[in-house]
């Protein structure tokens, strides 16, 4: 007799995070959805002990081992869903920890909305809240109110047929491949429905300054995403900045440049430069007060002058 096909396949890409992958597998082991209804496919290109770890775990996941260093997230996810057997594909990541009812909730939403993409809620892991609170360069993912514009693959479910029809993740996209897939799905007329009760917690990573600079360099690939999907600009502040933090950082940089310009009146002598640097914070406050004053006047006289 043919073994019954699972309803949903969980696909997990992994890269050099064996311990965290272990924690994810433990969390998946506690899922309330009966094990016979879902399967697990892990795809990795790690050089650590990931293979041993996956092979010996009680969940007995199926796995795809890629040549070390060759698996970007999109390559891994494509390999994962192609190896999967179920008509629904739930994606999560090796640095996540889903709640025990995560898969059940995603599946409920998928059944209630046939053909739709289902996005769950993602929050920084409460077990790591101290690091999130205090580490100056802590990073996690928060999507409390799905569906969000980024449609992160740390907590999302796609119908397999839809991914197939879209040709899978764009393997040229080194970052933002999840946003790209969701935008193509939306263009094809599919909707993303929310399952806020399907919660996955995301790890909090705290980095050294050089480490986070190196990691942030990958965001340069987001320009590729925006070039492919100009309509995505509608979700961006002023249709130009990726998020509000970038807008404020750019504004601050302009402010610093302005303060540097105005400090030139102190001359180029050493004493003049020292004086200018010492005066810079005061100059910044003065300039801010001027701009705020003019903004208040603009409101009063109903004409914008900054």
């Amino acid at each position, binding site marked *: 007799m043919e073994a019954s096909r699972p309803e949903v396949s969980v696909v997990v890409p992994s890269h050099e995070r064996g*311990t965290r992958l272990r*924690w994810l597998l*433990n969390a998946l082991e506690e899922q309330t959805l009966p094990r016979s209804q879902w399967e697990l496919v892990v795809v990795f290109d790690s050089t650590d002990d990931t293979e041993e770890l996956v092979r010996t775990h009680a969940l007995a996941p199926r796995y795809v081992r890629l040549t070390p260093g060759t698996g970007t997230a999109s390559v891994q996810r494509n390999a994962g869903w192609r190896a999967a057997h179920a008509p629904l594909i739930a994606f999560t990541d090796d640095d996540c920890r889903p709640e025990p009812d995560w898969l059940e909730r995603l599946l409920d939403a998928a059944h209630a909305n046939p053909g739709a993409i289902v996005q769950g809620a993602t929050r920084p892991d409460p*077990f790591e809240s101290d690091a999130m609170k*205090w580490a100056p360069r802590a990073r996690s993912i928060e999507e409390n109110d799905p569906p969000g514009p980024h449609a992160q693959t740390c907590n999302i479910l796609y119908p397999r047929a839809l991914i197939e029809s879209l040709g899978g993740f764009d393997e040229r996209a080194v970052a933002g491949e999840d946003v790209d897939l969701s935008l193509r799905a939306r263009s094809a007329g599919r909707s993303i429905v929310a399952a806020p009760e399907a919660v996955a917690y995301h790890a909090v990573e*705290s980095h050294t300054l050089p480490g986070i600079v190196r990691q942030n360099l990958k965001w340069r690939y987001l320009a590729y995403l925006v070039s492919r999907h100009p309509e995505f600009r509608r979700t961006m502040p002023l249709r130009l900045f990726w998020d509000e933090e970038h807008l404020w950082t750019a504004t601050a940089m302009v402010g610093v440049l302005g303060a540097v310009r105005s400090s030139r009146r102190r001359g180029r002598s050493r004493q003049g430069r020292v004086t200018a640097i010492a005066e810079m914070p005061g100059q910044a406050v003065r300039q801010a007060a001027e701009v705020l004053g003019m903004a208040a006047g603009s409101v009063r006289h109903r004409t914008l002058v900054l």
Partner: protein
Amino acid sequence: VTAGERAPLRIALVHHSSGPVAAELLQALRTAGHRAEVLGARGVPPVEKVLRYRGFATPLTHVPSVVAALRRGRYDVAHALSPQDALAALLWRRRGGGAVVFSPAEPPSRETLADRRLSLRLVQRALDESDAVVALTDTTRAATARWLALEVPLIEAHDAAGWESLYRELLARRR
């Protein structure tokens, strides 16, 4: 068995707090005739409070003084009971010290493995670089397998013969 192998060992139990595990292990080793001492933190310096406030896995400030005490004491083995203590022991070994054994006094749990800055990095370093990782209780052994995917041997704190055998094996390997 040579006379050198029978000689009492000089063992430093590195632990920042004076918990019952360190006391039981100390008692067992001393009863077996070894020179065992507990090295740990003395008081809580203000810097420690700042580190704690900034979310670090504390204590950390005792590490330099423990490394210095290990070097002064000419120990054969440093037996660390927490990841931070293992950091001190590993630094001592790098500066010409002896064998390092890591036995977490508390069972590792998902709630605490990455709860603070450096927590996970310290645990991974202790596991990867120690000469031996040994569980003191069955609970710790099971938790180490579940959360760290590591099957480790079990030697209970009172089992001085078991510890001596392990220490001598590690020292023989280092020769």
